[in-house]
């Protein structure tokens, strides 16, 4: 995993904005998501329940969101620590979703990322890994950050 130990502390602007997101989250958390209470503003662990009436009903997943020094000018690093079986989610938890990489916008929030992920899961109909899962995961063995991957976004169906 890209360790939080080697990550630079949040800038004042980043800490300020994250504190606002946290307050907003505590008032209105996105449905189905549960942030584990910690004192670490820079690393959020979020539990997620599979939505009823989807193929993930009754399952439980977990996300880790790590924020860079210059958030929100830079995207957070988002990975599943307990990943669902999904054609865009690798078994090491890396997620192929454009808004986490080159389509990131500073107007996005942890909440809006969660809603995108939920919609990605809910629209899926087949539980399978990406076709190149084994090769990709092997290449990530040394703890690659998914933000360093050159992603291809070729499938907009799920």
């Amino acid at each position, binding site marked *: 995993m890209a360790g939080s130990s080697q990550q630079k502390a949040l800038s*004042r602007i980043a800490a*300020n904005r994250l504190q*606002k*997101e946290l307050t907003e989250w505590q008032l209105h958390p996105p449905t189905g998501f549960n942030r584990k209470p910690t004192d670490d503003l820079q690393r959020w662990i979020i539990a997620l329940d599979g939505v009823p009436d989807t193929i993930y009903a009754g399952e439980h997943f977990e996300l880790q969101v790590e924020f860079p020094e210059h958030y929100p000018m830079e995207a957070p690093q988002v990975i599943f620590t307990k990943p669902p079986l999904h054609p865009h989610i690798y078994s090491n938890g890396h997620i192929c979703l454009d808004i986490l990489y080159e389509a990131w*916008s*500073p*107007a996005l929030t942890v909440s809006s990322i969660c809603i995108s992920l939920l919609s990605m899961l809910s629209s899926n109909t087949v539980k399978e890994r990406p076709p190149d899962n084994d090769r990709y995961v092997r290449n990530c063995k040394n703890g690659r950050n998914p933000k360093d991957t050159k992603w291809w976004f070729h499938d907009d169906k799920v």
Partner: protein
Amino acid sequence: MKVKIIKWHAVGVWTWDAGEDTCGICRMAFDGCCPDCKFAGDDCPLIWGACNHAFHLHCILKWVNSQSPQPHCPMCRREWQFRA
């Protein structure tokens, strides 16, 4: 009855006419200032894009300067141009 005003005390308020209340980048109130500033108003102005989305000038400049070659509006993803 005749009233003679000896002294009066006027109180003015101001607000930005931005449509939204908060900056989509820093999430601070438009009527406040960006996290880098101490004083709202002329010291920390708003700026509009050609797409009509408003941000604190200081916030959008940080975003635009970090994006190359072509920055996009954080709200609508259209190519960012400052409104003339």
